[in-house]
């Protein structure tokens, strides 16, 4: 029985190749764009996750709260509430903390010879390397003596190195000018990838003591980065840090002047944005699928009208309503399935092309392929149902007389 249905269906589809082909094309475009756009969304999400995870291990970040109206200079962070003593207290008083690093960061124009670049200067301690999982490409990282003796030394990111010295140049021992103060380059960090504000490749790391003395002249720090001993410890450390700082700042939960975020929070915040974006992209592509489905319906209705006499004949020789509607449903489902299949391949190819030529990450997931197959079969049923029903309800006498 299925073999008969299959043969009938193939005969009907191939009877009008151009029309079937164009109708399928509508579904192909719809499915391909769904697959490709979901792949772009998914790929973006993956790369954001990876770059957030590469910021550090079991990272908790404390940042100043919102800027207050009084007593604020446009310096480090949006408000000044965290101090070096806060950072030291966290390191000494809280269990489960592996390392703490204060960060004083500010953007400056940096000059080497005739080249210059605008980059972020981060004043921090030696723990920073461990907390942010930085690896050294050439030279060394800051040492404890660099910090305590306030040596004007700098560890630069790979992108900064490329901008100032050119790619492949070993700048260790060279002197750069930051805000007219000379710093000696002692090391270069390995590239971590990522782009935009996520990157840690474009920054210059100097001892926080130096940053305080030459750039800020106060006790405040921008961010305190904390590394918990293990993933399980993150939540308890975060709670304790919060309690300690509230006590030290003499604040309550309501009047708090700092924010604490951990890596999981950042990942989920970023994920929820990209997920929404992916859904939006898929929804836009979905519109073209609906248009494709309407194309299927249109073709099937034309088919039913054209083949009215054939339907009459089939009924006269004993076809029941179900036989007729199954025949037309099989036809529309085959069309959409074929379209879906080609569309998945095309969408995959487009996603691959985007990854190759547009340097955007793409990732085609099995779930989006299953979704595409399900949707294309569903479109075949939904948009094929009405024409099939119409065919099956034809009166054989009228159908046989149809001209």
């Amino acid at each position, binding site marked *: *029985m299925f073999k008969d249905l299959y043969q009938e269906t193939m005969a009907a589809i191939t009877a009008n190749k151009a029309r079937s082909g164009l109708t399928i094309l509508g579904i192909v475009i719809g499915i391909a764009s769904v697959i490709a756009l979901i792949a772009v969304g998914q790929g973006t999400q993956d790369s954001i996750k990876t770059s957030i995870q590469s910021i550090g291990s079991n990272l908790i970040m404390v940042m100043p709260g919102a800027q207050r109206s009084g007593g604020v200079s446009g310096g480090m962070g949006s408000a000044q509430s965290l101090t070096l003593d806060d950072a030291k207290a966290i390191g000494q008083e809280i269990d489960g903390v592996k390392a703490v690093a204060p960060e004083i960061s500010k953007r400056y124009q940096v000059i080497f010879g005739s080249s210059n670049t605008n980059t972020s200067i981060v004043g921090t301690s030696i723990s920073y390397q461990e907390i942010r999982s930085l690896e050294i490409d050439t030279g060394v990282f800051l040492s404890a003596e660099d910090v305590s003796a306030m040596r004007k030394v700098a560890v630069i990111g790979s992108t900064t190195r490329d901008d100032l010295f050119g790619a492949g140049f070993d700048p260790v021992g060279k002197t750069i000018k930051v805000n007219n103060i000379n710093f000696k380059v002692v090391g270069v960090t390995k590239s971590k990838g990522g782009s935009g504000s996520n990157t840690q490749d474009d920054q210059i790391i100097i001892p926080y003591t130096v940053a305080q003395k030459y750039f800020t002249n106060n006790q405040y720090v921008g961010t305190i980065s904390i590394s918990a001993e293990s993933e399980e410890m993150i939540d308890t450390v975060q709670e304790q840090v919060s309690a300690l700082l509230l006590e030290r700042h003499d604040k309550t939960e309501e009047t708090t002047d700092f924010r604490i975020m951990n890596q999981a929070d950042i990942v989920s915040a970023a994920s929820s944005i990209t997920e929404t974006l992916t859904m939006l992209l898929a929804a836009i592509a979905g519109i073209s699928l609906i248009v494709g489905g309407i194309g299927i319906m249109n073709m099937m209705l034309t088919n039913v009208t054209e083949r009215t006499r054939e339907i009459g004949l089939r009924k006269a020789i004993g076809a029941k*309503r179900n036989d007729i509607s199954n025949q037309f449903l099989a036809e529309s489902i085959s069309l959409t399935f074929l379209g879906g299949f080609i569309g998945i391949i095309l969408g995959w190819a487009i996603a691959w092309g985007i990854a190759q030529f547009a340097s955007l990450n793409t990732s085609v997931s099995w779930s989006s392929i299953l979704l595409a197959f399900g949707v294309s079969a569903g479109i075949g049923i939904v948009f094929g149902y009405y024409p099939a029903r119409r065919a099956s309800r034809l009166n054989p006498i009228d159908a046989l007389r149809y001209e």
Partner: protein
Amino acid sequence: MKKNNAEVAIACHNINKIYQTGDIFTQVLYNISFEIKRGEFVAITGPSGSGKSTIMHIIGALDSPSSGSYYLDGQDVSQLSDDELADIRKNKIGFVFQSFNLLKRTTVLRNVMLPLVYAEAPVENRLALASKALLAAGLEEDRWAHLSNQLSGGQMQRVAIARALVNNPAIILADEPTGNLDTKTGEIVLDTFRRLNKEEGHTIILITHEADVAKHADRIIYIKDGHLVE
């Protein structure tokens, strides 16, 4: 073939048919009663608008009478649902139409096998059944693999006859089978019916408005203005 002339293939008793269009009722058949025995070759004839097409539809289980009873092959088929009528058509009736109604771009053999698809005949038997029917209908074997639209009118009608025969129905119902053919080809088709009736014992009912065609049958049922004329 069963050859029991005493058995009744078709029995109509007081058949009335009334069509309703909006509030207007039109009666097309009035108290039609007749019987056709197994193995008979009967023509139902009458001028256009006489109601012979309506009779053909009722006999062919394409339509139901408004009142009266209709027995086909011993079974009351006057009050059946659409799908039940489809079963009757599938098992008991072979249709031959004026305009052949073959599937285009489809081979002769596949056209003849089409009723076997709906009858769910085993696939391995279909070719043999179709070949037998084509031989009986008198179509040369070298045409069997041709597409239906590559045939002449007479050949197409013989394919249609083979399609009507393939499921071995109780009656063969031919609706103006020569209407689209020239006189000479028409004669060949009518001879085919005669041979199927005489040699193989098929019950054949010929619906036609042409007296020349009707006279090929053994008996003529004449309809005029919805009444049977004796």
